[in-house]
């Protein structure tokens, strides 16, 4: 056997083994030691969760400052989501024409209401002092508007906050009531002590997003820089407020313009069905190739299996977020991967019919089929690039599902060129040598 051929076969074998190792699931214990992702990343449609598109209201922001404002909206929302405890959230900004948007994907979050409340609130906290100087206000006789006008901002806001926590206060009633405890920064504590000193025996109001939350009466100056907000909280709403305060206020108000929530069972069921469909389809294609092309078809099947192994490994390495259309794309590329083999084998038949010896016919078939294979695949590569939109052009699609499909299609085409041509060719040469 010729040396280069042997080396090439060994290289293919090594690559295949490497792919198998990467493909092993995380449940195999020693697989954990390998630094690549053990498990395939799955998209929202497979795990279940919430997909939100928020539009930021930039009317009061100078156009030059809008990108910064949007970026800080993103940071605040990311912090809130992290504090809420969502694993692997996706938060992206997108600017389309005049509209500034934020795309938020929260895997595993099924309580949409809670997610929306958490993310959608601006959370502007500020302390205001009473202008009326008449002691505690009579809530029954004043309107909400009057209450706002009766108070004047003190300059102490959420920015002066160091930490907000939920605690339980033994109120007047027997049941303990959830409250939000505030710890100010040293500067904030300074402001707070001044404010409380000049407002003894007067109400000090706490506003959240211009809504009065509570207005306790200051009994004595507070110098420690600690305060408590109480006001009909449930345990959930108190912890949400604490998260929002800790993460900081949104610089601009946001509005939800798209929401999708997908239950996890829908995803799991679909994956099971798709895997089943994929295996049966793969079996049919493999059988078809053997029936049509005999032993060569079998070699193409080996190349097809290597194709599957390498593709999966690449999915883990990049990593590709797998969605349902992505799985469909992968399954479709299995059908397309044998195309180069079919082109080559048909060509081989022709060359043999023309009376050429097998070894020469083989090389000719590969050489001549390559032109068609190359041109034909360029069209698919162009289409998938338009769909993936790698440069994020705002005039093209950037939806996760469409991208998921296109990425698997692109990877599929490139790897199938490798396995369909290089792997099959070397395998065929190897068995050709054996035959002689």
């Amino acid at each position, binding site marked *: 056997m010729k040396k280069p051929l042997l080396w090439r076969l060994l290289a293919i074998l090594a690559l295949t083994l490497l792919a198998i190792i990467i493909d092993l699931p995380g449940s195999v214990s020693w697989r954990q030691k390998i630094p690549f992702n053990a498990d395939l990343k799955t998209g929202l449609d497979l795990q279940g969760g919430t997909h939100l598109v928020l539009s930021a209201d930039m009317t009061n922001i100078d156009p030059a400052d809008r990108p910064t404002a949007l970026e800080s909206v993103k940071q605040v929302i990311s912090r809130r989501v992290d504090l809420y405890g969502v694993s692997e959230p996706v938060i992206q900004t997108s600017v389309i024409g005049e509209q500034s948007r934020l795309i938020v994907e929260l895997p595993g979050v099924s309580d949409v209401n809670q997610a929306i409340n958490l993310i959608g609130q601006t959370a502007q906290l500020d302390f205001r002092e009473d202008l009326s100087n008449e002691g505690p206000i009579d809530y029954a006789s004043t309107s909400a508007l009057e209450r706002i006008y009766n108070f004047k901002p003190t300059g102490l806001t959420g920015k002066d906050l160091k930490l907000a926590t939920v605690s339980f206060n033994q109120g007047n009633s027997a049941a303990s009531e959830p409250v939000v405890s505030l710890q100010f920064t040293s500067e904030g504590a300074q402001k707070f002590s001044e404010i409380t000193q000049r407002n003894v025996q007067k109400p000090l109001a706490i506003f959240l997003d211009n809504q009065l939350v509570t207005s306790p009466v200051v009994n004595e100056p507070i110098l420690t820089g600690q305060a408590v907000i109480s006001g009909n909280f449930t345990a959930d709403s108190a912890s949400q407020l604490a998260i929002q305060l800790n993460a900081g206020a949104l610089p601009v108000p946001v509005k939800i313009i798209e929401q999708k929530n997908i239950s996890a069972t*829908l995803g799991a069921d679909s994956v099971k069905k*798709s895997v089943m469909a994929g295996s049966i*389809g793969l079996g049919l294609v493999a059988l078809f190739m053997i029936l049509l092309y005999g032993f060569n078809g079998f070699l193409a099947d080996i190349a097809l299996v290597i194709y599957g192994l390498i593709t999966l490994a690449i999915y883990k390495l990049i990593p590709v977020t797998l969605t*349902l259309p992505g799985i469909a794309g992968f399954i479709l590329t299995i059908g397309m991967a044998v195309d180069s083999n079919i082109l080559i084998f048909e060509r081989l038949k022709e060359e043999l019919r023309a009376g050429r010896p097998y070894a020469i016919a083989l090389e000719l078939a590969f050489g001549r089929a390559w*032109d*068609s294979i190359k041109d034909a695949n360029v069209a698919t590569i*162009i289409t998938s690039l338009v769909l993936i939109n790698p440069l994020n052009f705002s005039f093209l699609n950037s939806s996760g599902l469409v991208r998921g499909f296109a990425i698997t299609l692109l990877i599929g085409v490139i790897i199938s060129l490798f396995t369909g041509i290089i792997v099959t060719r070397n395998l065929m040469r190897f068995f050709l040598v054996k035959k002689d």
Partner: protein
Amino acid sequence: MKHKLFYFLFSLIFILPGSYFLIRYGLSLSVDFTGGSLIEFSAAANLEQLRPLIESQLEVSSLQSAGDNDFLLRTTVIDQTQHDQLITTLQTSFTDVNPIRFETVGPTLGKELLKKTLVGILLAAGFILSYVAYRFHDKKYGICAILAMLHDTFIVLGVFSFLGVYFGVEVDALFVTALLTILSFSVHDTIVVYDRIRELGKLFPKLTYTQLVNKAVTETLGRSLNNSLTIIFMLLALYLLGGDTTKWFVFALLVGTVSGTYSSTFTAAPLLVLWEEIKNKHTNTSKVL
């Protein structure tokens, strides 16, 4: 290529009714494009019981059954609170009421997607046209390949317009993906045939153009069929066994693959011959004059 008129007629049998449906009814667009809300829920009830109750609460665009006790409800844009209210109302009247899916797309987003889709298709078609023209040094190949591609697009659009009218199938963002994939597959298949015409032209310079095309088509037919069959196997398996979410997406790919296989042999190649004949007739008449 004797029968090329017959091939074109055969295509028309599918394209004409499809165009009729497209012009008469258009495509039924999903909330992805139009904006609105989609609610999927299960309930131990039937459509007749559900409809009046839901219509009293929301502006219903459509209410359909989607399998055992599963229902798909489409409405104008509603928010989470309205959705929760609806579920509570249903729960008071029926048993086993469970929300499965809730999607809301604002109307501006829908319009944007429609625009992006058109730009995407034009861009892909433009790139492919330039590539084919560049590779074959002759614009007739590029133009005929694009015509074959349009042929497949029309067939798929026609089929989905028909399905929309009779089976309530909607065209969504994924359908667009399928359409673009079909475009690339159609060209992929056509290029293989054209490539063979070019190669044979070099090998047999004495053959007439029609003879060349005939020979190329005969030689590539086996490959074209076999390749399409492997893709059809995979798609059929996905269609029959895969989940509901991708069912119509896969169906679009399936229709496109079949049409793409037909068009590369029976549309794209005869078109070249027709092009050549018209050109020759033109030069002949100008000679006579």
